[in-house]
């Protein structure tokens, strides 16, 4: 199983799905609440900011191209401290996996299936996530390759069929909000879409073919995923206007509701939900994979698959109780998640960099060390 590696195209696709994730559903309203019609600018800046973060991450991970993030931590910080930081990382990925599952079930229950018990909706998603993770990263990557075509097909259908209702004046006036608030919203987006992609470093240099090409595709994938988010934000503002968008919990869903092609194709929002369900599935799967695989590395278990069922049970339970209501979820996303992401995704890698630079001489003799060029 260790031999099957991810090809550059597969990695690109995974990065796109990870970047889009659930942001496609929430980000337009999160951004418009803060910066109104300038939300798309915030989204744009957020994505460019993401490139810097990716550069930072890939640089760290390429010091040891054969190791996963967990092993790099151990190498740099030593056994005890390294494992502690890794545990923090694993806890974050599993927490986010549960949070995403909970988000999706809250969405489904409020919008589509008011009578279905939340446990079963979560269970359904957890089952296929476990199935995917047990089948291995290669299978996840291959299925992502197939679904990316469906994803972009639906996205283009959405964009084209909504286009008659676009009102460009909704974007005006530009730059009404303060630059500082734009930047702070941008950072929120970066945190959700890009900084969290530290989870991908359980895959990135160690389990990919053609590392250089994959690094390029990391930037590219982040840009394409970002473009999806920017355009969905713009479409929301174009069609719904910034005020309506800000008032919606699920603005893209509302956007799909107003599609009307010849008075025949209307209300196809349930079909369009495929878009974010796909992206969300892959994001949850990647989080869960990173968590389980990371845990197996921490515990020195050779076969990570034995951990999938027990960890899945925890994730399922957590996903049911994590958000008692949607307000709780919004506050978690806005405040707590940002803090956790910043600590695990930015502070820890920064610390790693400092320690690495201080002890660089020692690492140069390490067999796993490679010049990052």
């Amino acid at each position, binding site marked *: 199983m260790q031999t099957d590696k991810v090809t550059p*195209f597969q990695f690109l696709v995974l990065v796109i799905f990870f970047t889009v994730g659930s942001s496609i559903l929430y980000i337009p309203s999160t951004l418009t609440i803060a910066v109104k019609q300038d939300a798309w600018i915030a989204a744009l800046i957020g994505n460019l900011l993401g490139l810097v973060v990716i550069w930072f991450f890939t640089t760290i991970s390429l010091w040891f191209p054969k190791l996963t993030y967990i092993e790099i931590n151990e190498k740099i910080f030593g056994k005890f401290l390294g494992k502690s930081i890794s545990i923090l990382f694993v806890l974050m990925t599993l927490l986010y996996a549960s949070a995403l599952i909970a988000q999706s079930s809250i969405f489904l229950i409020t919008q589509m299936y008011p009578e279905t018990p939340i446990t079963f909706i979560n269970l359904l998603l957890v089952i296929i996530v476990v*199935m995917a993770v047990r089948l291995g990263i290669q299978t996840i990557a291959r*299925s992502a390759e197939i679904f990316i075509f469906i994803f972009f097909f639906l996205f283009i259908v959405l964009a084209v069929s909504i286009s008659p209702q676009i009102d460009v004046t909704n974007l005006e006036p530009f730059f009404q909000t303060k630059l500082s608030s734009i930047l702070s919203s941008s950072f929120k987006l970066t945190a959700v879409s890009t900084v969290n992609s530290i989870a991908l470093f359980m895959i990135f240099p160690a389990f990919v073919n053609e590392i250089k090409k994959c690094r390029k595709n990391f930037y590219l994938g982040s840009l394409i995923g970002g473009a999806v988010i920017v355009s969905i934000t713009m479409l929301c503002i174009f069609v719904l206007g910034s005020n309506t968008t800000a008032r919606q919990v699920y603005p893209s869903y509302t956007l799909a509701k107003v599609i009307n092609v010849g008075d025949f194709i209307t209300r196809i929002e349930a*079909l369009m939900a495929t878009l974010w369900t796909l992206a969300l599935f892959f994001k949850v799967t990647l989080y869960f994979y990173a968590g389980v695989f990371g845990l197996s590395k921490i515990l020195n278990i050779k*076969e990570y698959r034995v951990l999938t069922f027990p960890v899945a049970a925890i994730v399922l339970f957590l996903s049911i109780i994590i958000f008692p209501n949607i307000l709780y979820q919004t506050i978690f996303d806005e405040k707590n998640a940002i803090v956790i992401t910043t600590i695990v995704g930015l502070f820890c890698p920064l610390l790693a960099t400092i320690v690495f630079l201080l002890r660089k001489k020692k690492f140069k003799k390490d067999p796993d060390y490679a010049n990052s060029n």
Partner: protein
Amino acid sequence: MNLFKKNRKIVIQPSPPSKSEPKSMPESNSLRLKLEENLQHIKSSVGESSDIVFREIKIGNEGNIKVGIIYTEGLSDSVTLQQIIMETLMLEIKESDIDLELTSDSAVLTTLKDFALTVGELTEVSDFDQLFTRLLSGDVIVLVDGFSTGFIIGNKSWEGRGVTEPTAQTVIRGPREGFSENIRLNTALVRRIIKDENLWMITKEVGRRTKTNVAIMYINGVAEKDAVDEVTNRIGRIDIDGILESANIEEFIQDSQFTLFPTVFNTERPDTVAAGLLEGRIAILVDGTPFVLLVPALFVQFFQSSEDYYQRAVMASLIRLLRFVAYGISILVPALYIALITFHHEIIPPALLVSLAAQREGVPFPAFVEAIIMEITFEILREAGLRMPRAIGSAMSIVGAFVIGTAAVEAGIISAAMVIVVSITAISSFVPPTYDIAIAGRILRFVFMGIAASFGLYGILIGVIALVLHLCSLSSFGVPYMSPFAPFNLAGQKDSVVRFPIWKLLTRPSEISKNRIRQRATKVNFKKSSHSKRSQDG
């Protein structure tokens, strides 16, 4: 998938020979010197079966050499036996100047072999195992008194079915020959198409009791050596008493045992096998069945008909697309109907919704129950139609169409829309050119109906994700099942969902063969040259 792999090992591991089987020759398996002893042993071993014929004759100038001839009646060609073998031994030897003396050395045998037995295929035999195998496959055994070595004369003759048109995979344009039950005829049919010395064949005998001949055919230099070894290896590991059809082999050698989807292709068309061989695939021919296996087999392959290559590229591409759409319909449409009726009314356009609601007004069942009743009825009809005598078939279709269709709607038990849904599903399920993949869709349809009834469109999407994950995890002899889609391969798209013109297909599928160059670009643009000619003429 670990569990499954472990399981497979158990299936394939050669089991120790069971002790209950009586060993007919405990001391040694080789032939004795005395003819009577040998004949006695053979007689008792075959249980004095009446179709094994024993004939003792005396040959030589003084008739002092006893020879036993043993053959299986019905499997051996009696004309050859009598007119060539017996006549030579009994009559012509005396007239010729061949001197036969009973000596202790093997001079008699050599003389017989070199001068007397006027047949093509002749091998020496000295042990009973080989003797029985060949005797019971229709060859003639000649034993000479005083020697522990005998002859096997190839004299198989079996009235086969001959080459007929294939019934399971019909085409409008293309060769009409199909494989038959005789393996020699089948290999000849392939050889007749590919006259290349690199078309190699490995022959194996599988089945302890049936001793079925299995031939592994491949083009040396095109097929991957590793894959050939793997096929040979997997077939070699089979230890079973009998192989009755290539499906038995298929079950033993497929990569994943627990899947609905076929990972071994089968066909009864020699042109399909030849095309597969030219692409670098490996053909497995089994004696006694017209169905030949082809590996590695990919998902797209099951949607490709040999006819695609005999029609114009655009037509072939569109028809292929249609097949994929039809397959999707056959799996998903009942599920989508249930999901829309049960959970997502808003998607249905208002006018249609009104009409649907009016139809469903008197129907006592929820959409799911209605769909299940209709689908199961249809499956029963289909299975019954397949097995029943042909004469009753027309009566069946009347019952099916009239009673279950019209009458059920008029009685208000089933809505008319449901009948339409079931019909379109049923017709679509016959579109894929291979039966195996259609069967997978048949079963999946019920799974999707169940999940749609409980979770609506979201459930269907989850089901599709699970299905794609499963498909992506499969592989056929090391080749990912979903290639060239996943892993994505741009060159492979030329001949997957669409088919490019044949002069554009310059390479073989990269997953299957490393020897990729298939043709050097053939010049197909004749417009220019003919135009210039015309201008010269004018």
